[in-house]
């Protein structure tokens, strides 16, 4: 069982107590940079960028709506990859990471839907429409809820994590299917509202583009910081009987009977 193709530090990091310490050290820095980036991005988006010639100031919702939408998809992909590792290789850390992605992913999806709705009302005249993108995002929210619900329905956390990971993988296959089927369905039933023109990224003004990208960076960093924190708590919960957790919680010195598992 030689695993020489994986670098040594990956093995080191996969051990829960090591990851716990590493994550604890990294997390405050990630959050600090995330907050600074957010301030810069919001300053650029809310104050520096000019009003849009068509949408006035309402377009400024873009600076939180689009990064949140990107995060809702990125987090799901992360969850699916971690879930795959958990299912195939039974890595405990991967199980925890996969499950701890879900709440933050659901949060960003929820933000995407609500901010999108608040943006759509003045622009399209409606709070909601069943087009491919909105429907796919709503289905994504249900997928997150399904994963969270299934995971929490199990007594055995490890088994629940594996079951919920399989559900996440099934869901990822379904997401493009939903998107294209609704697109087909929507074109079949003609006569939707005026479609918000979504110009190719290249045609967005630079003064609007850079705050958007900075906000994207900020949300990514925030997600990593949040994930590290949630994973630490998840590891404490999963490993609560182990020596390293007892030493951590009770302030007792860890026993020198060998490396903590």
């Amino acid at each position, binding site marked *: 069982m030689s695993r020489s193709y994986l670098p040594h530090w990956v093995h080191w990091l996969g051990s829960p107590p090591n990851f716990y310490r590493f994550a604890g050290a990294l997390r405050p820095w990630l959050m600090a940079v995330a907050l600074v980036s957010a301030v810069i991005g919001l300053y650029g988006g*809310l*104050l520096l960028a000019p*009003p849009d010639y068509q949408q*006035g*100031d*309402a377009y*400024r*919702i873009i600076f*939180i*709506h689009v990064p*949140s939408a990107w995060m809702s998809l990125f987090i799901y992909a992360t969850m699916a990859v971690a879930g795959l590792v958990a299912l195939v290789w039974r890595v405990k850390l991967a199980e925890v990471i996969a499950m701890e992605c879900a*709440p*933050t992913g659901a*949060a960003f999806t*929820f*933000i995407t839907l*609500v*901010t999108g709705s*608040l*943006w759509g*009302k*003045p622009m399209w005249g409606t709070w909601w429409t069943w087009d491919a993108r909105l429907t796919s995002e709503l289905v994504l929210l249900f997928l997150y809820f399904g994963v969270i619900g299934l995971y929490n329905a199990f007594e055995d956390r490890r088994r629940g994590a594996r079951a919920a990971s399989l559900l996440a993988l099934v869901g990822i296959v379904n997401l493009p299917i939903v998107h294209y089927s609704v697109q087909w369905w929507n074109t079949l039933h003609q006569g939707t509202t005026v479609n918000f023109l979504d110009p190719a990224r290249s045609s967005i003004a630079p003064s609007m583009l850079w705050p958007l990208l900075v906000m994207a960076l900020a949300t990514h960093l*925030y997600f990593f910081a*949040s994930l590290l*924190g*949630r994973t*630490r*708590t998840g590891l*404490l*919960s999963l490993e*609560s*009987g182990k020596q390293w*957790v*007892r030493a951590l*919680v*009770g302030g*007792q010195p860890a026993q020198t009977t060998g490396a903590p598992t």
Partner: protein
Amino acid sequence: MAHWLAMGGYAIYVWPAYAVFVIVLAWDWFAPALRRRRLTRELRGRLAREHTRNTRAPHAEVST
């Protein structure tokens, strides 16, 4: 300033959107801390019980 807050008349859409962003992410950041606090409290209690059990009957078999 007031002009900026008015957001060209779209204030009732823009500011609630930003509020949702901040509030939901604040929940996402702080909620795990509560869970963690409860967890450490439980673990400390369990450790204390085991400690008293050990010191009272040091020869008894202790299961983790």
